[in-house]
């Protein structure tokens, strides 16, 4: 049953990718159907799970023994507990919606079949990731989603920028994956196993040092997958992919895998405070980093990407807080899944109407032309900035509270950071909103000189947006009401109440204040006066932020060019030195031969001399041998 969850979309991928052109007509529907099917299965499992009582809701099923080597037993086995179930529903649910959306969005693309194949492949990998019962199988899903994201970012391969972005994404992720691999090595050497159950249940026996090491390695993995500092650089470029992809993979699901990983291996982090601290720091930094970047971008998708980065920063931070944060991290993850997906789909719909224009400075005043998009986008907007009552509000508020709840100076700092983040979020999202839907038209003909004629997207695209909008409005409330969500996850992640120095109400209040501040400033800048069609030079910070705070430049200088020089010099060394030695030896013998050859000068008498000399030496040597 659990296996089917993964199997169904995998089948879809196989069929669609190997099926060939004859599937071009119906392929997309098949893909959508299968993902819907796996959602149905997920739902069914969910219901059956609700039937049981909290403690034994977890299900476990072993398919077969994968790599049985002396002392190294890796199984293909699944574990479905509340945590996994949450993800399953999110993935399949949002996934299905986005499948539907894509049917419309990719309508005119020749490679639509391939696209749906990749989407199904992604679903399968992602489900594998969250359903695996051991870290090795998780690793498979982990790289699987990486592959899917590689394929989808580079879906329009004829665009060099897309191909490059895809490669970059994969490579940066690979670095993270290496971290996960090392973590698994450590687990194996420490516990002789890498399955969740035994490892997580015996963390107590391992020394804190080991746990810290493992934790940090896991964090490295999380950073790669969830675009956290210092491995965040790929996410911005990943926006080269089709918008549904950005919505599904780079907003709702895959990028949150890091959060899942940390939450899942909570036991290890709980045993390693230092590791947790690092996690929190990474989360906090990314939170601000993403927000700042998001403030400066004029490309709507990049702005949203920055926002994603920052929101995941929230989650990581929360996860770093330990038992007091896990539940909220996941909760924010889910709500974020809804509204960010919604936002991206909205952005997609806007681009759809604007000849794939992405520069917000060329939008403006679209609310009248695409009302549905406007409304859904607006709701998503309200949700993400944490407008009271909407889902974003609840989840984010919880995290801020938990941040304070960390206690001590840390608590204060974290609280401040999260609040600042909230303000920034409000600012950049408002900015997006205003630049896109309000103000006067700044439309411009595109490269082919086609005037944009903004129009509402077809039903097939708007319906998913509407559904997601509902999600972003009510999900938070549902979860919050009576701590449903926390209780639901408790058996897996456990839950402790943080002892916040400030009261919950105070936190809420300050949240709202910062929110208002952000919106206000944004309105002050972009609402009041018309937006210049070309970006002003802007402050130093702005310019830096436009370039993703220069970290790409840093990578380029240090890694890329450095690496290029290294390889170039190595190639030289290999040809001249290593191989040179070989050829040199040969040449050496050749030269020696040429020189000795001259002795053979053709004169019989000189031959005789050599004989005579030889005889003399022979005699001398013989006598010498006797002498000594």
């Amino acid at each position, binding site marked *: 049953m659990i296996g089917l969850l993964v199997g169904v979309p995998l089948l879809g991928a196989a069929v669609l990718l190997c099926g060939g052109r004859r599937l071009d007509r119906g392929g997309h529907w098949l893909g959508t159907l299968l993902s819907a099917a796996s959602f149905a299965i997920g739902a069914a499992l969910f219901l059956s799970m609700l039937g049981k009582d909290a403690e034994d809701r977890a299900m476990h099923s072993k398919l077969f023994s994968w790599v049985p080597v002396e002392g190294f037993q890796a199984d293909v086995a699944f574990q479905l507990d509340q945590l996994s179930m949450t993800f399953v529903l999110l993935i399949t649910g949002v996934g299905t919606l986005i499948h539907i959306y894509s049917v419309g969005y990719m309508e005119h693309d020749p490679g639509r079949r391939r696209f749906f194949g990749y989407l199904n492949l992604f679903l399968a990998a992602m489900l594998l990731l969250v359903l695996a019962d051991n870290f090795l199988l998780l690793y498979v899903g982990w790289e699987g989603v990486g592959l899917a994201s590689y394929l989808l970012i580079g879906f329009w391969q004829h665009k060099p920028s897309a191909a490059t972005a895809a490669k970059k994404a994969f490579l940066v992720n690979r670095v993270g994956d290496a971290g996960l691999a090392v973590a698994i090595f450590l687990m194996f050497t420490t516990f002789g196993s890498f399955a969740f159950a035994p490892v997580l249940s015996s963390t107590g026996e391992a020394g804190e040092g080991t746990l810290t090491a493992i934790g940090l390695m896991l964090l490295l993995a999380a950073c790669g997958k969830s675009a956290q500092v210092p491995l965040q650089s790929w996410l911005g470029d990943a926006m080269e992919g089709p918008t549904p992809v950005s919505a599904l993979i780079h907003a709702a699901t895959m990028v949150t895998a890091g959060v899942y990983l940390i939450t899942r291996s909570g036991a290890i982090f709980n045993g390693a405070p230092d590791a947790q601290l690092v996690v929190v720091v990474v989360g906090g930094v990314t939170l601000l980093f993403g927000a700042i970047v998001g403030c400066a971008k004029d490309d709507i998708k990049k702005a949203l990407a920055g926002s994603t980065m920052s929101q995941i920063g929230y989650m990581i931070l929360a996860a770093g807080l330990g038992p007091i944060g896990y539940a909220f991290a996941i909760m924010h993850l889910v709500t974020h899944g809804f509204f960010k997906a919604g936002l991206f789909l909205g952005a997609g719909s806007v681009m759809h109407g604007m000849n794939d224009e992405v520069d917000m400075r060329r939008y403006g005043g679209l609310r009248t032309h695409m009302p549905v998009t406007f409304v859904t986008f607006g709701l998503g907007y309200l949700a993400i900035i944490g407008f009271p009552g909407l889902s974003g509000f609840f989840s984010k508020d919880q995290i801020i509270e938990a941040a304070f709840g960390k206690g001590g100076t840390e608590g204060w700092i974290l609280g401040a950071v999260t609040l600042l983040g909230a303000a920034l979020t409000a600012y950049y999202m408002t900015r997006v909103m205003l630049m896109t839907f309000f103000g006067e038209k700044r439309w411009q003909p595109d490269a082919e000189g086609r005037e944009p004629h903004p129009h509402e997207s077809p039903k097939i695209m708007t319906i998913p947006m509407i559904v997601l909008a509902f999600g972003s409005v009510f999900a938070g409330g549902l979860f919050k009401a009576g701590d449903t969500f926390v209780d639901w996850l408790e058996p897996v992640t456990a839950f402790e109440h943080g002892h916040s120095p400030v009261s919950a109400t105070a936190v809420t209040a300050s949240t709202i204040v910062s929110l208002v501040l952000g919106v206000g400033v944004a309105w002050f800048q972009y609402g009041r006066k018309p937006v210049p069609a070309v970006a002003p030079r802007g402050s130093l910070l702005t310019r830096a932020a436009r370039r993703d705070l220069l970290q790409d430049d840093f990578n380029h200088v240090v890694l890329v060019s450095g690496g290029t020089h290294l390889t170039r010099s190595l190639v030289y060394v290999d040809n001249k030195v290593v191989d040179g030695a070989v050829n040199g030896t040969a040449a050496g*013998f*050749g030269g020696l031969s040429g020189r000795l050859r001259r*002795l053979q000068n053709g004169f019989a008498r000189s031959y005789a001399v050599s*004989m005579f000399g030889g005889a003399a030496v022979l005699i001398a040597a013989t006598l010498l041998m006797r002498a000594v």
Partner: protein
Amino acid sequence: MIGMTDAASAGGASAASGVPSLWTVAAGAGDTLQAPSIEYGKLSPVLIVLGAAALGVLIDAFAPRRARYSAQLFVALAGLAAAFAAVIGLAASGAATTKAQIAGMGALAVDGPALFLQGTLLLVGIVGVFTFAERRLEPAAHGSRVDSFAAQPASVPGGEGEQQAVKAGWTTTEVFPLLMFAVGGMLLFPAANDLLTLFIALEVFSLPLYLLCALARRRRLLSQEAAVKYFLLGAFSSAFLLFGTALLYGYAGTVNYSSIARVVAGTDAVTDPVLADTTGNDALLLIGSALVVMGLLFKVGAVPFHMWTPDVYQGAPTPVTGFMAAATKVAAFGALLRLLYVVLPGLRWDWRPVMWGVAILTMLGGAVVAITQTDIKRLLAYSSIAHAGFLLAGVIATSEDGISSVLFYLAAYSFVTLGAFAVVTLVRDAGGEATHLSKWAGLGRRSPLLAAVFAVFLLAFAGIPLTSGFAGKFAVFKAAAEGGAGALVVVGVIASAIAAFFYLRVIVLMFFSEPRADGPSVAVPSAMTTSAIALGVVVTVVLGVAPQYFLDLAGQAGVFVR
């Protein structure tokens, strides 16, 4: 000579009565002189061959020109075959193992090594005769088929006489008796059991070879030059050998191997106090043995006595080169083995280090210089030098394995060599044999079969597994390693690696480079050369894949009679 030795003992006896005076000895000996007894049966191989050779001379003297060729061919082949049969017979009768003995009044040893080598030599001789008698290669001059020997060696190259001789279609049928004499001497050489016989045998097989070298039909100047060089240097070396013999005689008072060995071992006391300053004088022994060994090393072509080899191999008529390269090595190594194992075992600790040096020089020298050769015959010459080095490694082992491995190696090597040179005779252009390597380019494309065959020979030379060359090399190195010459094995291995390079160069040339427009053509030989080549291939493969039987043979033959 037995008479003399008796006389010597008598002299020794009479020495008691004061001054040793020869005539009294002679007088005393006069009545006790009895005729020497010769075991003709045991010596039959040598006698048959030399008889056939003499017959050949008579034929050349009296038979009419037309009849000579076929008559000579028949006599030679018959003689060699009969001799070979005799060798087999002797071996079968156990002369090689249990009934090994000294024959001919101490002059010759009939034992395992001798018979094995004689058998090998006779086969080599037969194949040699085939290549000598080949008459399909040279374009038929004026109707009559000719072989690769000068029409009239006495005539001046390019002179009037030569043209007439060529027009008349004359051929030098003397080569067959010469070959037979050479074979006869070679049969004696490894069997020689005293230094005098050694010297005589040496000359008996050298002189015909000197002449044969001078008899090329084409490029006669080169041929003559080769002959002169070979002759002068050969004579020079044999002078050394002779002087060494004299010194050894002075040391031991006898030239008989076993007697010398006894004196060296100090088992029999000095016969006469007067001789104390000569007999047992180690300076004489060491210098003498060094000179004799040097004479042999010259024949095997060991560095630094190798320098004649390339020139002679290149200049001599190719069939002669092939025969010489194969047979001389066999004979000379046989003699060297006997000398070192029978005469000088007591001196092992003196000559071993020296031979080490020679072996190393020979292996490396041959291999290195060969790299830059441009003439196929010179290339093979240097290769033969390198192989002499490998053989020396086996000689140095100073064990029964050493002997048998060398015997095996010699057998394997000689047939590869014959085959290789036979192939060389086939690759021809307007100027006769095209021996310059550049002309061999793309031969594998023109005539794959021949090139493949030659490649097989080259691989055998290089010692690639599943060829006789590898089995031989392994046997020799194994013996050396067991004999405690591990370092020598390592050097040998390095040398083989270097050697591999130039063998490969030829293969690359034949198969991977484009054929030249003016490239040589491959003559279609008669059955004789074909069979020579075929035999070479067969031996190469058989000894490579299933050497055990022959190893056993060599193993049984691995004991010298004292």
